[in-house]
């Protein structure tokens, strides 16, 4: 049995991984000392006194080798040469600090929500139809609907984002005077609608919608 134990390499003797740190080695040595000391309950009667002495000596030798940087390096090289140890397993992977806030990160990669807004804004600028509508003197309900459809945003999404009831939104897009709320609310609703679609400048477009000659605004 002690023959078998003696055949183990130092790492196996102490139940260590080849990349164990000094702290781990010290801890493992303490644990095995408790296991193999003379009055240990665990190994009581398991070994004869000579066997125990041999094991204790081996453990001490293993510990003294591994705890010494120079000796450990020599021992590792010996093990690698014998093919017991893999060269890659020997050295721990060097951990470099990871920065939490990376300023150099490319814009638009920060998160899914911002990503969507940025994409929407880009679409508004690029889209010819939208630019044409926005350059007009007056903006009507069907115009807003066309912009929304160009941007491929469902009305339900706007209702969800702005918390405006969907029948009001239908009214805004259809110029349906009966369905619209009082002017003071209507202005707020239109601004929220425009903000949700990233259409700028909000106040100016809102004014163009409200001040149409054919539009008499919401209920009084």
């Amino acid at each position: 049995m002690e023959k078998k134990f003696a055949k183990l390499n130092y790492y196996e003797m102490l139940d260590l991984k080849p990349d164990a740190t000094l702290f781990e080695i010290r801890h493992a040595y303490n644990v095995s000392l408790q296991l193999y000391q003379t009055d240990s309950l665990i190994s009581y009667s398991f070994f004869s006194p000579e066997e125990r002495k041999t094991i204790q000596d081996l453990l001490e030798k293993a510990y003294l080798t591994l705890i010494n940087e120079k000796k450990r390096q020599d021992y590792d090289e010996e093990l690698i040469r014998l093919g017991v140890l893999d060269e890659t397993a020997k050295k721990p992977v060097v951990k470099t600090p990871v920065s939490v806030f990376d300023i150099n990160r490319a814009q638009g990669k920060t998160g899914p929500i911002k990503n969507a807004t940025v994409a929407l804004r880009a679409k508004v600028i690029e889209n010819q139809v939208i630019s044409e509508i926005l350059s007009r003197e007056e903006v009507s309900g069907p115009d807003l609907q066309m912009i929304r459809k160009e941007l491929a945003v469902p009305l339900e999404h706007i209702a969800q984002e702005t918390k405006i009831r969907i029948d009001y939104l239908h009214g805004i897009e259809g110029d349906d005077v009966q369905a619209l709320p009082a002017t003071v609310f209507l202005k707020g609703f239109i601004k929220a609608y425009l903000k949700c679609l990233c259409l700028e400048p909000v106040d100016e477009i809102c004014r163009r919608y409200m001040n149409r000659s054919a539009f008499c605004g919401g209920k009084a």
Partner: protein
Amino acid sequence: MAHIWPIGGGKGGSGKSFLTCALGRLLAGLGKKTLLIDLDLGAANLHTLLNIPYPAKSLSDFIRRKYPSLENIVLETPVPDLFLISGANDTLDIANLPYEQKIKTMRAIGKLNFDCILLDLGAGTSFNTLDFFLISQNGIFIATPEPTSIENVYRLIRSIYFRRIRQYFTASDFKALEEEAVQYFGNGAYAKPECIMQMVQRIYPETGIKLDNDFNNYKFKLILNQLHKQDDAGLGPQICKLIEKHLGLKIDFSGNIAYDEHVHDAICQRVSFLDRYPYTRTAGDLRELSKQIIYSAGDQLMINYS
């Protein structure tokens, strides 16, 4: 085929019979048809723990051929789904069961039709105990966290190891093997099964491979019983580690059972500890163990003597 769990522990008083009885009750409670066999020949107790003071039939009746098969001597117990083969009122020489009777009993046990069979083995390392322990791969060792008990459980594990090797050889071959080992490893090697094992691998490589297979397939378990508050709960895993490292035998640590004075009361009153004190730590430990044990069943292993 039934799953057989022999329960042995080396030292007397470590709780083999109590554990057998408690596990039996728990397994029966889970709806498994469970049989307890009292193989503590000559010092049978299980019937008392199950509150059957005067069993009508016992193992002796089978051995003395009063009944042709083991099924005839199975007793019902007050617990539903739990059955007992008692060793009470047996002949005074039953402790020294002759070889043929032992083989006959073991074969009969293997043929029994139950879901679970628990064998309560006696203390010590007599051949009867060892052979009954080796009937299945699921042997359970039980010890208490005291040097005396741990000493005896190591002794039992070594004896079982030894017995398994011995079963592959005739007496004269084995004697030669022992002498060979003493010559090679020096004096004292005959007491070390691992030395003999090395000799086997050297001289009879085929048998060596078979034995290696056997030992790898064993699913022995260790349970530490009567763990007091001040005892180290990490003792069990360390014992298993030591055995694996130095004997090459893999033993799983199943768990600790807390010490409880109420066990004594329950035995004195001859009631089930689990029923009387279900909310004690000990009862919880036992329930946990029964679950673990039922999910880990190896194969049965009828031994061929050469």
